[in-house]
């Protein structure tokens, strides 16, 4: 399935843009993709197509695929299809849904930040953030448009 879908969704333009963006990668980033057949199938395919193109473009990206309900999904507390985790052994960042449209840009940025450890925060924000002592879960609701 992956190969056919890749050809359909990931155009040469997208690959070139990813190639350019991934020049910045430093450390290896592991990506885990979780899907369940019958739920959001089109978006499962998009998530697989997007992520399976990435290791071909950069050897610093390693992707693994899992089924919702398997051991890994239980360990990672993943229940929704599709879900993509970025560097889950190091950080707690996830896309609940497929990062299509405008969200593709922030997904790629998330991978780059996870690889380099450098973020987009200003020095001022970083100083403010130093005051945070408690656990926080951020949810951002988005749409492709």
């Amino acid at each position, binding site marked *: 399935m992956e190969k056919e879908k890749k050809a359909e969704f990931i155009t040469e333009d997208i690959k070139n843009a990813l190639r350019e963006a991934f020049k910045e990668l430093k450390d290896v980033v592991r990506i885990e993709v979780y899907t369940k057949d019958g739920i959001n199938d089109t978006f499962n395919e998009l998530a697989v197509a997007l992520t399976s193109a990435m290791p071909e473009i950069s050897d610093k990206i390693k992707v693994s695929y899992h089924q919702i309900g398997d051991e890994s999904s239980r360990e990672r507390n993943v229940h*929704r299809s599709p879900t993509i985790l970025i560097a889950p052994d190091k950080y707690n960042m996830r896309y609940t849904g497929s990062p299509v449209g405008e*969200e593709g840009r922030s997904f790629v940025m998330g991978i780059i930040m996870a690889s380099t450890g450098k*973020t987009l*925060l200003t020095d001022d*924000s970083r100083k403010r953030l130093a005051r945070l002592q408690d*656990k926080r879960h*951020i949810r951002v609701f*988005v*749409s492709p448009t």
Partner: protein
Amino acid sequence: MSTAIEKKGLVSAEVIEIYENRDLAEKYAAMTVPKTFIGETLVSSGLQPEDYFVESLIAGEPVEYVRPSGREDLREYDIVVIGAGPAGLTAALYAERSGLKSVIFEKASIGGQIAITPIVENYPGLGSIAGKTLVELMANQTMEYSSILQGVDVSEIKKENGGFEAATGRGVYRARAIIIATGAGSKKLNAAGEDKLAGRGVSYCATCDGYLFKDGKNVLVIGGGNSALTDALYLDSLGAHVTIVHRRETFRAEERLQQSVFQRNIPVMWNTIVKEVIGERVVEKVKIEDVKTRKTNIIKADAVFIAIGYEPNSALAEKLGLTMDEEGYIKVDGRMRTSMPLVYAAGDITGGVKQIVTAVSQGAVAALTAFEDIANPYWKKQVS
């Protein structure tokens, strides 16, 4: 994502696509995006400056006000700008680059109408760009020079001691000149249930929120002008089942749009108004009334898109006693001067074509005119 990396172990970040997770979107009333929650608490609808987001993250709840770094407690400015849409952001940028100290007050979201525009395709030089991306670019550029105080409402402006005093929720700020860029908002229907179900199927922006209803959902578009018909065509092209509800028996939209609507056989309920939007958590039904027979009817609907025009956010200008036009927009001359010396207006609040490119242009003109007028008061010359 940045904060989840900077504070790994403490911060987890989740981006949720609403179309694929409609149940979550409904649970969190996040059918209008973007919406940001910390835990279960909504901290922002729309874009938020980074310092506000970080302070919200620390507090675990929305914050009203963040002290700008470097200008703590500064109360006197050359120019106070009200509104952080494209006009206000550009006005502050030009003011600062002219050597005038400025501050922007924004009571709601930075970016104004552009922040809810999915794609901007008529801003010269940028081709096609997401509205929120354009807002980020503009706001970041302005914040290199000026400060934006978000969540701070200016309740009144008074002429005092040869200048102005702006009364805000954070005290009084003094300025030599004022630029009003408060924009225009979507008109409401004022139907029962409209406010309760806003963001839960009631929407004022089809291009922002239509995607959720693309697969054969029943949507009503209310209105008969260009915006309403454009919205109806957009929603129809997405695959929604669209019905237009219009209070008159003819459209006032341009002919070309009307032809497209008729060609696509989009049903129209003429002479009909919406009396009530009904639903527990989300829109389920709509009560409509035939204005001729006064007969009411309840129809099923998943969403109601309201496109009955704009109204100027003019309360502040009215209080100040500025001259307005018959539609309630501030009257300005070619230099963006209002009827009161050293008070300028820019952007949608001045009426006209309401484009981003004209808003930024007017913001620049207002700031440069203010710079000129502060140095050479034209009204004093006229008197002498």
